């Protein structure tokens, strides 16, 4: 008779460690069971919510249903706003749940139609957020909406920085004009990554100076300066 070890035979500590490698959707999908020991472990561990572009609407609803009982365990969110068969995922998640222990938040591929004001208010007022990243690929189609998103992030996060926030990465193509006339605010940011982008002009490195005025506790800064000026030189032989 083979003597094999089942997953359920592992002690709690090992299971906790294993579960820490899985994100919330996979965890609930695989381990929701009548087994009360595993259920009680699931009620205590830290959760990482990861919604990739391949997540389906069904999976999203399944996850959301489980999050009703577990949203206070979520410490990190990594969410793609436009998934396989649903858009406005971020709005949906934050509309259904509070995340009172959220530390890290990554939003990517923002849907141009998403309304994110309430999401940002929630992040600022109801979470001890430590790290916030926006990853938005360059897109010529929805430039106005992307710009209005970037303006919102700039106003709510760069200018009215929550005191717990230390790390901000905004990979979004924008030129941050609202930063220029700001008087000094001291924030607690220690890491900042920005792209300064203006379509038909040459931005100067001087755009950095207001940033340094506002975020005077920075330890590391990563800046990209780009424009898409049309090429003027054409005398190629």
């Amino acid at each position: 008779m083979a003597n094999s070890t089942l997953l359920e035979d592992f002690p709690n500590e090992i299971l906790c460690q294993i579960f820490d490698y899985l994100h919330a959707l996979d965890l609930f999908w695989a381990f929701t069971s009548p087994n009360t020991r595993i259920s009680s472990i699931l009620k205590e561990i830290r959760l990482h919510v990861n919604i990739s572009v391949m997540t389906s609407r069904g999976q999203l609803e399944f996850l959301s249903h489980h999050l009703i009982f577990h949203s206070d365990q979520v410490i990190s969110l990594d969410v793609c706003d436009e998934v396989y068969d649903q858009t406005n995922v971020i709005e949906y998640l934050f509309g259904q749940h509070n995340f009172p222990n959220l530390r890290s938040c990554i939003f990517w591929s923002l849907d141009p139609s998403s309304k994110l004001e309430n999401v940002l208010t929630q992040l600022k007022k109801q979470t001890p957020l430590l790290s916030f990243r926006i990853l938005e690929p360059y897109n010529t189609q929805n430039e106005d909406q992307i710009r209005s998103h970037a303006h919102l992030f700039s106003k709510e996060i760069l200018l009215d920085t929550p005191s717990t926030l230390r790390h901000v990465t905004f990979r979004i193509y924008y030129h941050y004009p609202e930063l220029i006339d700001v008087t000094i605010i001291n924030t607690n940011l220690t890491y900042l990554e920005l792209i300064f982008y203006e379509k038909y002009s040459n931005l100067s490195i001087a755009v950095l100076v207001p940033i340094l005025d506002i975020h005077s506790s920075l330890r590391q800064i990563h800046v990209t300066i780009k424009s898409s000026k049309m090429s003027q030189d054409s005398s190629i032989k």
Partner: protein
Amino acid sequence: MFIIFFSFPNVQSINENNLPRVTSLKIFDLYIFTQCNIHSLACVLHCMPNLQEFSFTFIVEYIHTPSIDVLLNGINWQQLLTSHVPHLIKFDIHISFLTHNRLLNSKLILDSFRCFLTQYHDWHIAISQWTNFQRFILCKSKN
């Protein structure tokens, strides 16, 4: 003294006597894909007096000759860095651009960076020049 930098439609001005100082800033990674004015860079570096690591990447298509000469001169970099960020221990620089049949004097450029090579034993510099690949094939096929 006011310096005005035109960046249509924004007009930005830097008051050189009132630059912010971020004394905690240790690492600065800068990627520029448009023009680069070394004087503005000096003002920005002046804001980070305790900088330890600076990475500068500059990639453009076509550039005005005088600007690129300033950036390719190692002596300018030496002056810039020693006067504004004297505690620097790591300096990475990468410059790529296209020119029109203008050959660069690689030896002159290398010589200007000699101060870095002599002062820091771990410093290396490489210059690559690539001619238009299509033209190269054309030349070859004429034989």
